[in-house]
């Protein structure tokens, strides 16, 4: 038990260090903030002009939860690039030479990345409200929507942690994650309804957890899904499906990333 407590305490120390960095290099945060704002504006005004929406709703209401999902997942990649960077600079070696729990550095990293994601979500919420997106449900449901997004992103952080430790170079990590995450967040119901997809793509989209996160937050914010309901199980039980994915990712990738951390020594 006491080792758990000390792992959490050490994690907090390391999270604090990562957040100081965010504060000192605001460029980083500005970059992370500007791209979702840009996405919201581009999609609402460019795609929104061409995508038909039923009377009484707007494309913005459909879109914003999708952008939320994509953005928090990209936010989770910071975990991987941050660890790869620390590895390259020998800072991981320093941490590994200290008497701390092997998971502490990873706990700290993933925690600080959730904190920055919260900030990002706040900014995006403001932008969304400015372009006509509205929450029509109770505050409690809305909070649950945000919590679900952040939980899923947190689970993704642990996947990124493993990849970052394996790749060892922040540049390579960023290239790889960009190539992987773009299709994952686009072959989903994030930006357009999936009815028009070819069958194979549609099945992938239906079972893609990104679709479920998006669907669940749409439900919890009271936003339209624009689809007549595809009938796929993951989308009918979007919140549950998201929870299952989050739990499984954490259960699998926490031990894997921790094991990799113990092995990794910079050259």
């Amino acid at each position: 038990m006491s080792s758990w407590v000390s792992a959490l305490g050490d994690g907090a120390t390391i999270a604090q260090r990562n957040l100081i960095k965010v504060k000192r290099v605001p460029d980083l945060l500005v970059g992370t903030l500007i791209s979702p704002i840009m996405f919201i504006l581009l999609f609402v005004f460019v795609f929104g002009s061409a995508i038909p929406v039923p009377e009484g709703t707007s494309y913005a209401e459909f879109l914003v939860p999708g952008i939320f999902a994509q953005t928090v997942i990209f936010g989770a990649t910071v975990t991987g690039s941050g660890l790869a960077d620390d590895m390259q600079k020998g800072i991981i070696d320093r941490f590994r030479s200290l008497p701390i729990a092997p998971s502490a550095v990873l706990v700290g990293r993933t925690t600080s990345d959730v904190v920055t994601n919260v900030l990002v979500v706040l900014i995006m919420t403001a932008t969304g409200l400015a372009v006509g997106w509205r929450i029509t449900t109770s505050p409690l449901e809305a909070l649950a929507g945000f919590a679900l997004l952040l939980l899923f992103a947190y689970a993704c952080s642990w996947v990124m942690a493993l990849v970052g430790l394996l790749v060892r170079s922040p540049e390579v990590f960023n290239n790889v994650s960009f190539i992987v995450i773009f299709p994952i967040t686009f072959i989903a119901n994030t930006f357009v309804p999936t009815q028009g997809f070819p069958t194979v793509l549609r099945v992938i989209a239906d079972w893609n957890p990104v679709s479920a996160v998006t669907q669940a937050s749409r439900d919890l914010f009271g936003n339209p899904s624009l689809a007549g309901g595809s009938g796929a199980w993951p989308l009918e039980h979007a919140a549950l499906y998201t929870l299952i994915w989050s739990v499984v990712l954490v259960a699998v990738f926490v031990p894997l990333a921790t094991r990799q951390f113990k092995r990794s020594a910079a050259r």
Partner: protein
Amino acid sequence: MADAVRARGLVKTYGRPSTRGRGGGVTTALDGVDLDVPEGTVLGLLGPNGAGKTTTVKILTTLLVPDAGEAQVAGVDVLRDPQEVRRRIGVSGQYAAVDEYLTGFENLRMVGELYHQGSRRASARARELLELFSLSEAADRPVKGYSGGMRRRLDLAGALVNDPPVLFLDEPTTGLDPRSRADMWELLQGMVRGGTTVVLTTQYLEEADLLADDIIVIDHGRAIARGTSDQLKAQVGGERVELVVDDAAHLDEVRSLLGRVAVGEVEVEPHTRRLTAPVEGGAAVLVRLLAQLEERGVHLSDAGTRRPTMDDVFLTLTGKRTDGPAGADDEKDGAAS
């Protein structure tokens, strides 16, 4: 006296060859290294790049697990209880592992907190070390603006946060300018006087000569020689006669003349027109040589005797000069110490 560090038969191979691996397969980084470091002494691990020095340090500091062998540091088994070893050591790696975006103070305080010193004590210790390492003025500035020497000092300070009885320094002065290097040496000598046991790797012979009580020369993953710097020098023979001829045309003539009195090989550096040879009887031999050369009308621009340097030791043992940039050239006056 008890050994602060003891290792037997350390072996480490890397399964995946590095990008410049020789023909693929397995690279043997360490091939059975033993070492003993009595408390309060300094061991210098000397060798060229890729000899296995860093691998040795990584095993002793729990960062790497050896394929074979065993090691104890500060009385604790490295393989059985790495966490306890970590409480008793300080490590400063090959490059300054400090966080650029944190201030010097924040870097050290964080390390203190990770040693579970508590935030008040961690802060006090951080200030104390910053003072000791002449970083007080820069303490509250982000490390990004620090010079290479300042970063190194901060990194070394990080290794001392917990007052460890055993300190591991991997090439502590590589990449530093001569002035910063001299500052670093002074700091290290201060710590050793305070009773800290130090294991230090270096490519600089001068550094090993100056700081280490005992030296192990490592090459290709093996310890090829060990002893005090005097013992190692004795091992490669006595004094050297060094001659620099005015005219390169005389090199061959002087070489054969030197060869007759030398107790080892005559070394010739054509571009500097310098000849060096180990001899017995130093000054007397030199005087005779000078007379002979005078007779033959060979003019010299420099002549003298010197004691063997670590560079000579390395050359004799491995057949090659050190890779370190400080190697041959800085070593000229090394014997004066």
